């Protein structure tokens, strides 16, 4: 029974990883940018919510809306002022500039909030520890279920936007070929800014859930980035749903690892990630070319 429990908890944890990873995957799919500040942006959002609720005394709901909107704007501004310029110099430069941004965010947070570990658990009352029991031995946390549902909803929403809306078509067209997109009247700069806004807002959602289910500190970003990255690689970037599959595989592996040995949580995750990576490499380089382009569609 304990194994069933671990698998179940792992699946729910996978929802959190998918939330964290889908923005990373979107940004890479549309702009070919690997955003090394993704985890730090998530943590930044958590601190902003903390600032508004604990220190400015705002209720949680308006604070969440304000922070998500602010993070979306930040994403668009980041794209226009920094990423767009970096991208002109090839793929490596955005990697360096987002790495720099990561350091800047971490140290601003450290300067502003100190090294203390915080949590938003107090702000959500009993939701932080309430659970449903299944039989006698299995308990699932309400928050974990909520996070999982939020992930599924977000992925369904993103998929619908990409498949059905003018913005989604413009995103897919620009992801394939920004120059040709311009020729049919798409302002690819605006589309890139929209993609960055969506990606950073989803990172913020991930960060806020992290803050509710656990703790966060100024330097917590890179660890979350690793999880998001592993999720994307395991899931294969073949579709947005790949991030959910990748997240679940990673979460289940970590929980089973933890059950085998108290230190096994991270190791098991990393091992599965490396296995996933090895499989992808073994499956052939031919796939990697089409993989990114097919991000939003079914594999051909």
């Amino acid at each position, binding site marked *: 029974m304990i194994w069933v429990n671990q698998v179940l908890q792992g699946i729910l944890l996978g929802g959190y990883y998918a939330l964290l990873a889908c923005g990373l995957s979107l940004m890479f799919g549309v702009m070919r940018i690997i955003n090394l500040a993704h985890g730090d942006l998530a943590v930044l959002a958590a601190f902003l919510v903390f600032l508004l609720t604990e220190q400015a005394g705002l209720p949680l709901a308006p604070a969440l809306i304000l922070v998500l909107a602010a993070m979306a704007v930040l994403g668009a501004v980041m794209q226009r002022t920094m990423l767009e310029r970096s991208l002109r110099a090839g793929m490596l430069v955005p990697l360096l500039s987002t790495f720099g941004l990561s350091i800047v965010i971490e140290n601003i947070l450290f300067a502003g909030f100190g090294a203390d570990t915080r949590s938003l658990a107090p702000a959500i009352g009993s939701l932080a520890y309430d659970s449903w029991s299944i039989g006698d031995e299995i308990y699932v946390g309400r928050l974990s279920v909520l996070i999982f549902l939020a992930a599924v909803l977000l992925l369904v929403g993103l998929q619908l936007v990409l498949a059905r809306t*003018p913005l989604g*078509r*413009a995103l897919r067209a620009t992801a*394939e070929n920004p120059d040709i997109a*311009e*020729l*049919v*009247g798409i302002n690819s700069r605006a589309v890139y800014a929209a993609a960055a806004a969506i990606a950073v807002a989803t990172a913020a959602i991930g960060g806020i859930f992290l803050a509710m289910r656990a703790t966060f500190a100024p330097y917590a970003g890179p660890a979350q980035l690793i999880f998001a990255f592993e999720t994307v690689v395991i899931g294969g970037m073949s579709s947005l749903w790949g991030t959910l599959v990748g997240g679940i595989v990673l979460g289940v592996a970590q929980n089973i690892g933890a059950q085998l040995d108290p230190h096994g949580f991270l190791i098991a995750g990393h091992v599965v990630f490396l296995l996933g990576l090895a499989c992808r490499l073994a499956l052939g380089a031919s796939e990697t070319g089409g993989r990114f382009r097919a991000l939003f569609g079914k594999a051909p």
Partner: protein
Amino acid sequence: MAEAGVILAAEGVIKRFNALIVLDRVDFRVGAAEAVGIVGPNGAGKTTLLNVLAGAFKPSAGTVRFRGAEVTDAGAAERCRLGIARSHQVPRPFGAMTVFENVLVAATTGGGFGGEAAYERCIDSLQLCGMLRLANRRAETLGLLDRKRLELARALATDPVVLLLDEIGGGLTDAEAGEMVATILELRGRQLAIVWIEHIVHVLLQVVDRLVCMNAGRVIADGAPRAVMADAAVIDAYLGGGVA
């Protein structure tokens, strides 16, 4: 001000790539509903001129006017929305999207159509190019002829006033090129201005009112098609030293 009837004009356009001068003070104009063919040997600057007209390249000097207003600084997306559409020599559909989506994205963003009107525009464009039966195919599964047709349908969906065609007949068999000519003649009936670069001169002559010949970045002849083809400079440059 622009002369009456001139819809798109390049004036004194120079385009340099570092030391290489690709366009050397080119003057070019196309009137409303006029069809102009551009011929010239490889490297004459034909495609570059089209890129300058479409806004893909900014000229190093000179101006581009559309309906009398200067658009030299407008990018490709903005010019597309104004009514300048182009097709590429090598068709570049959005491969992961369906044929219909390719056209729809053009109709909604480039043409500014919304809702029902966008769908009608797409159906009309696809039908005109004989692509309606393939509307639900993924664009990357299409062969060359269908890709060229899609390229044209996508350009049409943006509701252009001027259509810039870059070797849309290239690589096609005579029968296929014939179909393409029929489609383009139909477009002429719709009062579209057309600028068409083509190596297959006899195809071009079936459609155009006026022929421009370029060589080494300059316009060397401009006038009635038969007269241009008979021009000594054209024969020398384009047909290679009076072989004809």
